[in-house]
């Protein structure tokens, strides 16, 4: 399974390094002088060729690299350009095409963590870029050839969420001939779309177009549908996920139930129907709606009288009715089922849910009966809904004559949710038109801030509504009050066009509420180890180029799980995610990075004393350490975080491509000049480095004195890196990783940041004892979504740096140097443990 060479072939001759500086059009060259960077790089040890490219990533740029490899007999390639999270794979391929091992490539990030975030200080940016290039060259000196690992692929996929997006993802994968598990939390697939009446801008019936797709899901030989179930555990990696699905008991046999409905006639329980936005009623044995898939009833055990084991009553009337009808489908002792499934790829389609506007007290929702939400209107206007399509006022069941729609309730509002939910303008126009058709004499007013009608045929639809006499009033209503006798509502809003405050009485007000992440999104993010953005929706790997990929390879998002989307966009994303998943599961093998850990058996203490620290630190059970034998890492199980490397007291473990020599080389290069003015930042690939990239993408400007070293995980940050940085005179050292909070860890490698924090505390205590100002060594959790936080942390640290003062830092460094050196000596050459008994 592994193709890692036992020991990388030693390179007796000096490396020949080529440095390629990308201008990225004006993106980089607009702030820094690329020519000067190349000239400076040419003076670095081992650099035999430098070049400036307009766009290194474009074909001509890549050809220049290949030609230079041949012409200058290069054996290492360094590209200074954007983030390695963007183009490292591109340039590795170029390096390989040039005839070198692809791991003889290193990248310096001078755009996302350079020109994009330092445009106000071009000189400082120039210095930082030069240092980052020097660090990449230093790492290049220590690069070793590696072969990619190949792992087998389970040719099956999991789709989580059976709304319109998940249905399409599942159908596409299944149609391609691959097995799909479709897991849905509620008793039926269909999601929100199945509850809507008509769809915009065509006004075709929602369930009429979705129903056949839902039926297809239940029929498809390649789809195994698990409803009323949730994903509770995910282990493994791309191509090889093991997933635990917990299915709640339905108490009705899916195969035996023929949905005759006799059971509901006898059930004595009446509870609000949440599938009807709680406007209608249902018994305890129920089916969400006639087109539900699977077409089977289920028992709501929280409200059922007779099945509870601790219940004094034993109703079971449904059981009798069912037997009488000849189905005998009731299972009184049904239990939770655990499914353990193996898949090669996972598609997350968990959708959104409408916001409950009760907290926006000025609109009086849940206080005034005639203030309803758009979702409630959908159920009222739907022929299959609780009123069979009659729109009535909840207070007196009468037909409304003056109807108001209020847009952006809980959207575009910093007190609740800042984002625009995207589709509310359109569904409001749709509902207004439907009402106009139903009640031609009713007056309809839409209060809005802006009407957003992007996408095909939407503006035409808006025009149609204006033409139909719907009144559009620009101005966000400030409050709704109620006439206590008539229960009519008075809406206060400024009419922006005339600039005057208005008040108007309505008998029904519909709130277009925000789309918010589905309940359980956070929990699922934890289970999958993928980040959510500031809005709480899942965060894609790249906002432009990887819109349906998670940062974790093999996991994909589609539909509103990633952000609110209308039906066509959700369907398109479902198909997009399925094609991304098929890209993996159609292969027999999948390449994964060989950045795994490896134990040097000659140095491992376990051969002499009982150690096994690495075994305990590994979150994946990839390491074994049998008594008397050296520890051993199984490469296919190793995820490459490097926590064991940093924790090994004997320095016996190496992480390929992130070796101690490589990282130390980077640190030394970064701190070559004026180290006391600099912040040495260690950033984990998945969160902090991505967060720092995001700061650049978002153009947050922050001080240029930070110098970044990328590692895969904060678990890799060894004590010697910190001590070496201070020994070299660093002004400050920052350890930054994925968020670790009381509610859990966002670490991409489960617990790397837990060990990073423990290590940080140990090192901080040691440094404090030595007499280093506490502000000079810092730990910060910065997620991939927190570009602003990254900029803030660096700005704050720089302020502290100035506060402490250059001279004080130099003096402090001089004072602690002997102690640092003593400790470093011990860390780098740990004493051999004494064997307990002589052998």
């Amino acid at each position, binding site marked *: 399974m592994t193709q890692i060479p036992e020991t990388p072939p030693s390179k007796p001759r000096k490396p020949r390094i080529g440095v390629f500086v990308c201008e990225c059009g004006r993106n980089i060259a607009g702030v820094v002088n690329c020519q000067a960077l190349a000239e400076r790089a040419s003076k670095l040890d081992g650099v035999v060729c430098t070049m400036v490219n307009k766009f290194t990533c474009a074909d001509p740029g890549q050809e220049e690299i290949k030609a230079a490899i041949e012409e200058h007999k290069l054996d290492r390639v360094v590209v200074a350009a954007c983030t390695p999270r963007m183009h490292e794979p591109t340039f590795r391929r170029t390096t390989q095409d040039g005839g070198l091992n692809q791991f003889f490539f290193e990248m310096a990030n001078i755009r996302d963590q350079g020109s994009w975030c330092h445009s106000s200080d071009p000189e400082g940016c120039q210095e930082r870029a030069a240092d980052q290039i020097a660090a990449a060259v230093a790492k290049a000196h220590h690069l070793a050839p590696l072969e990619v690992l190949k792992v087998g692929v389970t040719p099956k996929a999991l789709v989580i969420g059976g709304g319109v997006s998940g249905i399409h993802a599942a159908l596409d994968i299944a149609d391609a001939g691959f097995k799909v598990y479709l897991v849905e939390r509620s008793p039926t697939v269909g999601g929100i779309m199945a509850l809507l009446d008509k769809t915009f801008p065509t006004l075709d019936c929602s369930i009429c177009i979705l129903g056949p797709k839902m039926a297809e899901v239940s029929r498809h030989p390649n789809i195994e549908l698990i409803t009323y179930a949730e994903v509770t555990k995910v282990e493994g990696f791309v191509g090889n996920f093991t997933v635990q699905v917990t299915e709640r008991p339905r108490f009705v046999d899916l195969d035996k139930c023929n949905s005759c409905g006799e059971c509901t006639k006898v059930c004595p329980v009446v509870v609000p129907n949440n599938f009807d936005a709680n406007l209608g009623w249902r018994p305890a044995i129920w089916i969400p709606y006639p087109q539900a898939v699977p077409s089977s009833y289920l028992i709501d055990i929280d409200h059922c009288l007779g099945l509870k084991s601790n219940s004094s009553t034993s109703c079971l009337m449904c059981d009798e009715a069912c037997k009488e009808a000849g189905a005998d489908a009731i299972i009184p002792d049904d239990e939770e089922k655990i499914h353990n499934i193996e898949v090669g790829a996972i598609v997350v389609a968990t959708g959104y849910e409408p916001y409950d506007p009760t907290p926006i007290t*000025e609109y009086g929702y849940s206080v005034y009966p005639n203030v309803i939400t758009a979702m409630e209107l959908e159920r009222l206007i739907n022929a299959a809904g609780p009123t069979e399509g009659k729109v009535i006022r909840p207070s007196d069941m009468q037909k409304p004559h003056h109807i108001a729609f209020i847009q*952006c309730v809980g959207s*575009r*509002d*910093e*007190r609740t949710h800042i984002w625009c939910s995207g589709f509310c303008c359109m569904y409001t126009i749709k509902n207004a038109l439907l009402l106009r058709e139903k009640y031609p004499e009713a007056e309809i007013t839409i209060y809005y*801030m*802006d009407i957003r009608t992007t996408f095909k045929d939407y503006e035409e639809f808006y025009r149609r509504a204006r033409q139909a006499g719907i009144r559009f009033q*620009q*101005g*966000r*209503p*400030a*409050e709704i009050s109620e006439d206590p006798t008539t229960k009519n509502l008075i809406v*206060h*809003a*400024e*009419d*922006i066009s005339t*600039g*005057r*405050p*208005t*008040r108007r009485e309505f008998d029904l007000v519909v709130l277009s509420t925000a789309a918010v992440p589905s309940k359980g999104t956070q929990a699922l993010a934890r289970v999958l180890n993928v980040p959510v953005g500031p809005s709480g929706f899942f965060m894609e790997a790249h906002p432009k180029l990887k819109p349906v990929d998670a940062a974790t390879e093999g996991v994909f998002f589609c539909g509103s799980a990633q952000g609110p989307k209308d039906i066509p966009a959700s369907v398109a994303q479902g198909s997009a995610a399925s094609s991304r998943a098929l890209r993996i599961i159609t292969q027999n093998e999948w390449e994964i990075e060989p950045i795994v850990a490896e134990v040097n058996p000659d140095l491992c203490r376990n051969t002499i004393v009982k150690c096994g620290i690495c075994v305990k630190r590994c979150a994946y059970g990839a390491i074994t350490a049998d008594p008397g034998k050296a520890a051993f890492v199984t490469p296919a199980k190793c995820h490459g975080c490097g926590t064991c490397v940093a924790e090994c007291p004997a320095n016996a473990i190496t992480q390929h491509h992130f070796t101690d020599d490589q990282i130390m080389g980077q640190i030394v290069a970064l701190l070559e000049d004026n180290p006391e003015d600099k912040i040495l930042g260690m950033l984990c690939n998945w969160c902090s480095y991505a967060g720092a990239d995001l700061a650049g993408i978002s153009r947050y400007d922050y001080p240029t004195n930070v110098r970044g070293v990328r590692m895969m995980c904060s678990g890799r940050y060894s004590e010697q890196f910190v001590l070496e940085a201070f020994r070299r005179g660093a002004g400050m050292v920052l350890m930054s990783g994925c968020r670790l909070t009381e509610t859990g860890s966002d670490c991409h490698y489960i617990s790397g940041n837990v060990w990073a924090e423990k290590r940080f505390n140990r090192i901080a205590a040691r440094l404090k004892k030595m007499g280093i100002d506490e502000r000079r060594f810092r730990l910060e959790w910065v997620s991939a979504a927190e570009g602003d936080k990254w900029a803030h942390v660096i700005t704050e640290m720089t302020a502290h740096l100035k506060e402490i003062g250059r001279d004080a830092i130099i003096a402090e460094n001089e004072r602690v140097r002997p102690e640092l050196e003593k400790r470093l000596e011990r860390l780098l050459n740990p004493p051999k443990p004494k064997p307990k008994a002589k052998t």
Partner: protein
Amino acid sequence: MLDRRIIDGNKFNQKLADEMAEAGYDRIRACIQCGTCTATCPAGRRTAYRTRQLIRKALLGLREEVLSDPTLWLCTTCGTCQERCPRKIEITDAITFLRNLAVEAGYMRPEHRGVSHKFIKTGHAVPIDDEKWSKLRESLGLPPLPPTVHCYPKALREVQKLLKKTGFDKLVEYKGDD
């Protein structure tokens, strides 16, 4: 009243918005002109005070128009607009800031100037040392004067000293006893 003048866009400038941002009301630039402030304003429902339009003019930099606008003084500083603003703009505080600028620029209402003069003279914006009040107080078993500067002429002199030191007297064009 209809204003028939065209607003000259060349005269728009960022200065007033900059000043407001510097004073801590930087969120004002995020205003989306939704009108919640105007619609929510209890003063605006009864007067010509239009919160959103004042903020708009301030953002456009129509400095003189904003500072000379008599409706600037109709806000009761109840804070409802601030509470309901979807951009969390410190509207009421910003209005107070604009009033300060207006006074500095000489746009003080004569009534306010009168009250200020009274304050300098007596230490009270609304003095309560006349016969009507002292009789009422006595009827309630209280001393005729409250334990404020009314009772302590030395404290009043201190207050006046402070007001002189901070330049308040000049600001409100107080020229001594008249």
